[in-house]
């Protein structure tokens, strides 16, 4: 691959692209103001290519919509590359001067001719060819993807395959092209950038690097920083279940609803000696805690947030927190002080100064500059630097871009005789994440008050299910009841629901099998059975 997990290009560049390949992203519902740019681009004549099993709202505008079988993305993308190489549509100059490992890619994708891909993915060979040609021939083609690509046991392979496709066709390193993961929550990008990850400090500085360790030891005036990667959230839950993890401090997350296989998480959390949750509401997870800290909401504190295009923006305090609630940063400082390590910050601005000093790509993103404008995109190494709209302009951050071909692997759990449906999960427009905030907005709650199970009319008929009938859906891990929505949005043998609603949170059913590298669970596919409730 060629760099870190961030959008290579900027939101504004969507206005200049000639073709969009949208895959695993329900853009108009999850990133509405990026989705609208695609709709508008369509009206000015841009092409839209969608690869998604569901008939997402954007599909109405698609020139071509490929509805692959769930979890067959690698095969589909390999098939497209097969056609592109076979028909000599790849960017030879780009491949020769900017990439390595082309021969290996060629070898792997040669095993995926359109006919073979049709068998795996259900996509007609003719459509696959058409898609490959459209993408390869466009001058400025952008790939946009989201959790539909990453939330698979083969998530990393899916991402690599998108990158391979972009490199092969030279759709990288310029304006209005690139590989653009749309990050879900408002500061996922920032949480990663700040080192909220077990293997890196801020700005992706590896914990195993001795120089980095030394740098942070000196800056923080401590000794003996841990130089081995820690546990991911998925591993932490397993460690808790096994009694190895004893205490967990959770800030602003609700894993009991957002993580797969609720029963497993519940067991893991109750196995802890001590659980601290810091949140603005008493979330399902907070209800299990030994101590709950009341936190301030975004409107009640100063701070910066990094959006999906790597842009750091400033938000300021508008009102005081209710009651005794305090901003998260103050609570952490208090704990630190009591634990014998005083953190002397007067304000988030002081913290930002330390971030500037210790995180190279954030070096020039100062409060002063942020307050005078609309934000800065990292990398922005110093205060003269204007920020970076698109990455990999003349070379990749690691020199040559390496093709990393992947073989297709089926999802961890496939439908069988008993669990005969594939369940896929996602979000809806009116709700956000586990619903702690949006379900407390009366208009949003009015628009979408309950969980629904989308099921294809063909299947509904067979099972005697009518629209809004109550159904029971079960997997090997649990069972839930909710109303059915009979709709063509899902293909036959596939059902869909969300994790916004605690009354029927779909993660009771999902599989915690995860990608071996990224540790992202397979939310997008597991086997279930469905029946109508009496």
């Amino acid at each position: 691959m060629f760099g870190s997990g961030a959008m290579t290009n900027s939101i504004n560049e969507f206005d200049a692209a000639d073709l969009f390949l949208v895959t695993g992203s329900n853009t108009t519902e999850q990133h509405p103001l990026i989705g609208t740019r695609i709709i508008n681009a369509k009206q000015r004549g841009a092409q839209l290519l969608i690869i998604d099993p569901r008939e997402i709202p954007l599909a109405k505008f698609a020139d071509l919509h490929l509805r692959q079988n769930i979890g067959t993305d690698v095969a589909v993308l390999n098939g497209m590359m097969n056609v592109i190489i076979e028909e000599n549509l790849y960017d030879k100059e780009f491949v020769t001067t900017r990439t390595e490992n082309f021969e290996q890619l060629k070898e792997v994708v040669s095993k995926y001719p359109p006919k073979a891909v049709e068998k795996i993915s259900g996509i007609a060979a003719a459509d696959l060819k058409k898609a490959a040609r459209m993408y390869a021939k466009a001058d400025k083609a952008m790939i946009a993807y989201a959790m539909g690509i990453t939330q698979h046991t083969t998530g990393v392979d899916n991402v690599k395959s998108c990158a391979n496709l972009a490199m092969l066709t030279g759709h990288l390193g310029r304006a209005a092209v690139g590989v653009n993961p749309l990050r879900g929550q408002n500061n996922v990008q920032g949480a990663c950038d700040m080192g909220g990850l077990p293997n890196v400090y801020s700005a992706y500085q590896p914990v195993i690097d001795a120089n980095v360790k030394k740098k942070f030891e000196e800056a923080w005036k401590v000794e003996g920083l841990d130089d081995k990667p820690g546990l991911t959230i998925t591993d932490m839950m397993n460690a808790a279940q096994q009694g190895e993890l004893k205490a967990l401090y959770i800030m602003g997350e609700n894993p009991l609803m957002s993580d797969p296989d609720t029963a497993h998480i519940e067991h893991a959390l109750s196995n802890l000696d001590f659980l601290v949750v810091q949140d603005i509401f008493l979330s399902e997870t907070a209800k299990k805690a030994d101590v709950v800290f009341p936190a301030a909401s975004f409107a009640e504190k100063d701070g910066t947030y990094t959006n999906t295009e790597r842009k750091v923006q400033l938000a300021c305090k508008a009102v005081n927190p209710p009651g005794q609630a305090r901003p998260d940063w103050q609570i952490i400082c208090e704990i630190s002080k009591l634990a014998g390590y005083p953190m002397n910050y007067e304000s988030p601005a002081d913290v930002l100064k330390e971030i500037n000093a210790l995180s190279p790509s954030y070096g020039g993103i100062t409060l002063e500059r942020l307050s005078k404008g609309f934000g800065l995109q990292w990398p922005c190494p110093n205060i003269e630097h204007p920020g970076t709209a698109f990455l990999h302009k003349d070379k990749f951050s690691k020199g040559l871009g390496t093709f990393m071909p992947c073989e297709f692997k089926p999802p961890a759990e496939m439908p069988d005789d008993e669990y005969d449906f594939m369940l896929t999960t996602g979000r809806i427009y009116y709700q956000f994440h586990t619903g702690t905030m949006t379900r407390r907005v009366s208009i949003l709650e009015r628009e979408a008050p309950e969980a629904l199970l989308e099921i294809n009319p063909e299947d509904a008929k067979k099972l005697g299910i009518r629209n809004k009938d109550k159904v029971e859906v079960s997997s090997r891990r649990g069972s839930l009841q909710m109303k059915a929505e009979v709709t063509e949005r899902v293909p036959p043998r596939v059902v869909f629901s969300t994790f916004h609603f605690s009354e029927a949170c779909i993660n009771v059913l999902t599989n915690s099998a995860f990608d071996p590298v990224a540790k992202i669970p397979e939310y997008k596919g597991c086997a279930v059975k469905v029946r109508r409730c009496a």
Partner: protein
Amino acid sequence: MKTLAKKDINKILSIWSQKHDVLAPTKMDNGDCIFSAFDEKAFTLDYKKPPLSPKSVFFPQSEIIFRVEKNRYNEVVAAKKALIFGLRSCDMMGIRQASSFMSRDNKDIYYQARQNAAATVVMACPKAQNETCFCTTTLSGPVAKKGFDLQLYDIGDTLLVEIGSPRGEELLTGMPLAEMEESQAKQKIDEFLQNAILTIPEVKSVIDAMNKLKDRKIAEKVWDDFGAKCITCGGCAFVCPTCTCFNVYDHQQAAGEGIRLRAWDACLYSGFTREASGHNPRASQASRLKRRHEHKLLDYNNTDIQDGLCGCVGCGRCSDYCPVHIGTLEVVKAITG
């Protein structure tokens, strides 16, 4: 005619600020220009129409309308003395439309209290603020005909002052006024108006569209196409100076304690018309958009605002801020095709 020196304007606003919450065009640090609490250093006369119209002063997006304390009900009618400086004539017309609606049948006491407490100082529009202005078509600009307390004409170093009400008169007490001879002032205003109108051409198709709507001669496909694009953000209703729909909800804080609030709602949201049975008389986004635009261009015809044209005041905000370009101008274009 009374005049003020432009260089004094900051001083004058400071004086008004002593007794009013003054909302005025403000250049923010980041470069945005919006209406915000008057701040001498950030105040500017070089501004465009902000996303929110002044209705947000009389009818805030969210507002407490009563409290229940110890099981007793207490109405909350909150109104501070306010002054909106620099609103444009289209927004003045918007206030008149909304006020007329809010005082018909059942008087909306919350709205009226805030409106009575707020003075308006219009800045006549010297030119189109951007390409979506069409106030000359809707008969709402570039200068306001009535409704304001004061209206100012910027003719260079001098501001001509038109007094619209006794409250306007009062606002001028103690101010450094000068006098311009009536005929000269009239000539200046005519010139101002001529120049302004030149930059805001009449959009005849708006009238054509209204007629077509009246004759029910519009292909459903127009609405279907818009319905397919609309992302149901509600923004068009929220930025519209004449939209006044709201939703009412309660926050119970403890037994016998709570508040009732109201907050802006939009006819574009499907729950707006959904009935308790689940039935929705306007089931599709297309039908909701059709309803909205009929309401603006058709049903508001011949309103009691005799000198206005319809429920649209020609500010162009829905065209500026709809993420998928379904503003009045685009709808008109599609209708008259």
